[in-house]
């Protein structure tokens, strides 16, 4: 790091500096991965539910039986 960059780094307030420990950064990444995974699970669940059959194969046969009974 050049002297200017070093000096600049020292002038940045402590709060604004990247003071995140690798372990806490990894923990946050894992949390984000978890949220992402459940986001995908939500999308997949809704999509599966939306594309599920409206008429059950068994209902069709029940209807068939009912019609043939008439």
């Amino acid at each position, binding site marked *: 790091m050049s002297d200017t960059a070093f000096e600049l780094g020292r002038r940045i307030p402590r709060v604004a500096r990247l003071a995140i420990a690798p372990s806490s950064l990894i923990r946050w990444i894992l949390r984000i991965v978890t949220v992402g*995974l*459940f986001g995908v699970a939500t999308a*997949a669940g809704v999509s599966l539910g939306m594309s*599920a*059959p*409206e008429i059950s*194969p068994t209902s069709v*046969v029940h209807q068939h*039986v009912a019609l043939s009974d008439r």
Partner: protein
Amino acid sequence: MRPPRLIANTLLALIWLGGALAVLQVVLSGGVPSEGGASLVAHVSGMAAGYGAAMMLILMSRSPWLERGVGAHRLARWHGRGGQVVIILAVVHTLLAVQAWAEARSTDRMAATRAVLSLPGLTAALVGMVILLLVGLASLRSLRRRISYERWHFLHLLTYLAVALAFAHQLAGSDLAGRRFVQIAWSLLYTYAFALVLRWRVLQPFFQLWRHRLRVEEVRQEAPDVMSVLMSGRHLDELRAEPGQFFRWRFLTRTTWHAAYPFSLSAPPTCEKLRITVKARGDGTRRIFGVPIGALVFAEGPYGALTPRRRRRPRVLLIAGGVGITPMRAMFEVIDLPGKDVTLVYRASSEQDLVLKHELDEIAERSGARVVYLVGPSTDAANEMSARALNRIVGDLSDHDVYLCASPRLATRVRDSLMLGGFPRHQLHEERFSF
């Protein structure tokens, strides 16, 4: 920290409530045909089996909230009992669905079976049910003893396939079809269950392998058929493992990579080292003894609620039987009480079976805690493990938190005796290890 029993009871109530709603919506939806009782029972048992299968996946997802909050031992017990119920419900559903079909179409059962299997998704569901049935049979006590842990474990992993195969049939079943909101809720139940499994049983161990690079550092013989495996790695403090907890270990060598074994830490974890102590019970565990130094270790965990943090009373009694000493050895070193009022009762059938004895004696001498060895046949009155006998050893037993880890037979005997003797249930903490 809330006591695990409270969390467990709340969770159990929620699971029952969910099951009741799933079954109730079948009856209230009006989707049940009025042909007869067989049809109604088939519908109700099918919904209950589908709901139960998702619950079993969630309970065994190794989610830390469940493992730490409820406890691995309790989760395994629920899974064992619940799994049996799910399999019975699935079988009842299959048989009565065919029966109801035969009644509705006035055909024999053979023709009804052929007709049912020709419907979309039904053959896959039947394959799933057969897999579940095989898993159920392999888990029967009499058969389980004859099957190696590795085969039983592999068969159990097939249940994921079985559940996935049955899913399409559930979604298209007449109890859900055409009811968009319920279909979405049902799909979410399953995608969340699989997401939990993926997160905690697949991603987490891979992440830990990458982050901690756990490797075998030393394999040391402790007793005939008992070895300690010392592992070293990086940033192990991030695992937040506690004495008394266990991991599922998979040693990445050509002969051992395919099976994960649950073993407790036998020493308090440090930032760089973890240690387990293993008793050979079969070919699989014996192969671990031959794991080369430097082998990578894939560790799932930490799991279990048997930790010093559960302590509520001013005195502690640790009870270990056989190789159940491992989590107790780790806790014995770290439980720090005023006056060192800690007693460890260690039961073994012979002097040779006393594992890590020199370490226990050293800790006792250093810390002022007490260790009592009960060695010899269980018929010997001196080796009695009843509440009365334990009370004689420690004084006022009711003033203790009791930690118990032993073989299922010994653990049951001690627990039953404690409960009969009026010992408060919430002061008993245990973890049982059997598959």
